[in-house]
């Protein structure tokens, strides 16, 4: 069952589409960074434009607006599809519902996380080819503010081990993507409408962002998990409890309403 679900999640047009959307959004951001890099004066510091800043700046652009849709696209609507198409009934003849749900949960979480984190790893590879590997620590000419409090939960790693800092960003994006994929899966236990499954996490993400921003709690913005450099002072307290709340809440809904989903199959 696990192999089938993983195959369905990763070898699908939806996963490819999610990667394409993430790739296009990252390309837009990288192009934005590249436009600045194109006009470097001779007197500029050696690492004014570098592979690490390119990732940080690119991650701060429009991709942060798309994260939930990238996360839910690969597999979150599959439960609704299985139920409405009658596939679930065929599956239940071959395996237990518990095993089916476990496989679904793991496949959905992993595919959502990888759809968000994977393109950023590829982006880091590309920026390593395009820009020098080094940091510009001269605060007067920095493109990305290198103070730890301006770089999010793992900001202290930036100056000492920038590769590890980028990997920490990728890890955060993976956790975030997995959380939103779980949210989509939770919506799929409530409705058969695949459109609602895909659109609801994106809508909630934007509504929550707008409301939280107007309440004045900018560090708690959902964007902070994916682009912690947007607001100064974002720490792990602002990022991980929020993501954990989304993931655990979604898991509770999924476990609580899954029997109802079986009854409707």
């Amino acid at each position, binding site marked *: 069952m696990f192999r089938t679900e993983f195959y369905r999640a990763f070898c699908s047009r939806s996963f490819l589409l999610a990667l394409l959307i993430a790739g296009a959004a990252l390309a837009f951001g990288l192009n934005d960074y590249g436009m600045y890099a194109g006009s470097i004066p001779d007197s500029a510091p050696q690492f004014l434009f570098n592979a690490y800043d390119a990732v940080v700046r690119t991650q701060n652009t429009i991709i942060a*607006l798309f994260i939930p849709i990238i996360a839910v696209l690969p597999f979150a609507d599959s439960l609704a599809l299985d139920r409405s198409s009658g596939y679930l009934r065929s599956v239940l003849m071959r395996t237990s519902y518990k095993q089916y749900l476990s496989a679904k949960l793991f496949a959905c979480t992993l595919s959502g996380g990888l759809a968000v984190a994977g393109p950023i790893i590829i982006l880091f590879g590309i920026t390593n080819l395009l820009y020098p590997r080094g940091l510009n620590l001269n605060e007067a000419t920095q493109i990305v503010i290198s103070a730890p409090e301006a770089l999010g939960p793992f900001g202290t790693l930036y100056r000492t081990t920038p590769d590890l800092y980028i990997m920490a960003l990728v890890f955060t994006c993976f956790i975030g993507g997995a959380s939103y994929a779980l949210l989509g899966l939770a919506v799929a236990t409530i409705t058969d409408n695949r459109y609602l499954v895909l659109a609801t996490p994106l809508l909630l993400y934007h509504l929550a962002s707008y409301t939280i921003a*107007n309440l004045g709690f900018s560090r708690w913005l959902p964007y902070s998990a994916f682009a912690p450099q947007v607001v100064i002072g974002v720490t792990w307290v602002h990022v991980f409890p929020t993501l954990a709340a989304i993931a655990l809440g979604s898991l509770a809904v999924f476990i609580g309403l899954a029997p109802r989903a079986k009854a409707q199959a």
Partner: protein
Amino acid sequence: MTRFMFPDFQRQTRMPGHEILSTPAMRLRRFVQVDVAARLRERRWLLPLLVASVIALIFRNNLHGATSQGIGQANSWDLLLRVFANPYGIFYCFTPLYLYLVSDLQSESGFAESLLLRVQSRSRWWFGKVITLSLLVCAYLLLLIGPVVAIATFSLPWEHTWSLPTLSEPIKLSLPPGVFAYTPASAFGWLVCLLAMGWLSLGLLVLVGSQIFRDEKWGFGIGMLINLSGVIALHSQIAAPYDWLFINYHIILGTHAFGDAQSPYPSLAASCLYWATWIGVLLMVGWQSSKRRDFLRKG
């Protein structure tokens, strides 16, 4: 074909409620009634009430904070304009929510072909959908404005003039000084007009997208993409006259000239013309594509 399959269908059809639907106009009216009622009965249509109430309460508290600083007393128009003239509110909150609510207007869960048989014409079906969408835009506006008006009425005075805090800091309402030549009521009226036309245009785009791709997810995606292009254009410096092509110049009240000849922004009439062009083009494209739509094919 219909006459062949259902010989007595052309004569008269009895619907629940014992209404005899004999004329095309009556059939269209019934189709729209059923469609609008089905949409508004969905629980997600309560979201605008909730969202508008929460945002109005947040902005009301902010206004009280400003009033306590001693600039002067804010009035109800301040709250209404702060909630609805805010570009971020339009792009991150109200438009995504609107698109979320109307994007599956095309999907009728296998019911579409029977509806088509009842309205007896693809053109009538399409224009029925357009009328439904227009009514849903009105309903959405009412559901958003209603709670804000209620909260404004209970907490702030209604006045015919601009308040002192607004006159001293128009930037807080995201409005240019030229808007003060209008009364607050007429400025708000223009804002509602722009929002209604903009949302109707986006709704039509979503309808046409869903119809062409036979999938409401694509319609929603296209709508969100256009909304996002507005966000990007809002933060970018796009060279004139191409900047006028983006929706942010036409849906936000603050990005209008208000009679200032030197302003880089369009006039209110130009924005209305812009949206009217969108609506006209999309009506025609949707009408043509509805003629070729395969109603029996799902997804």
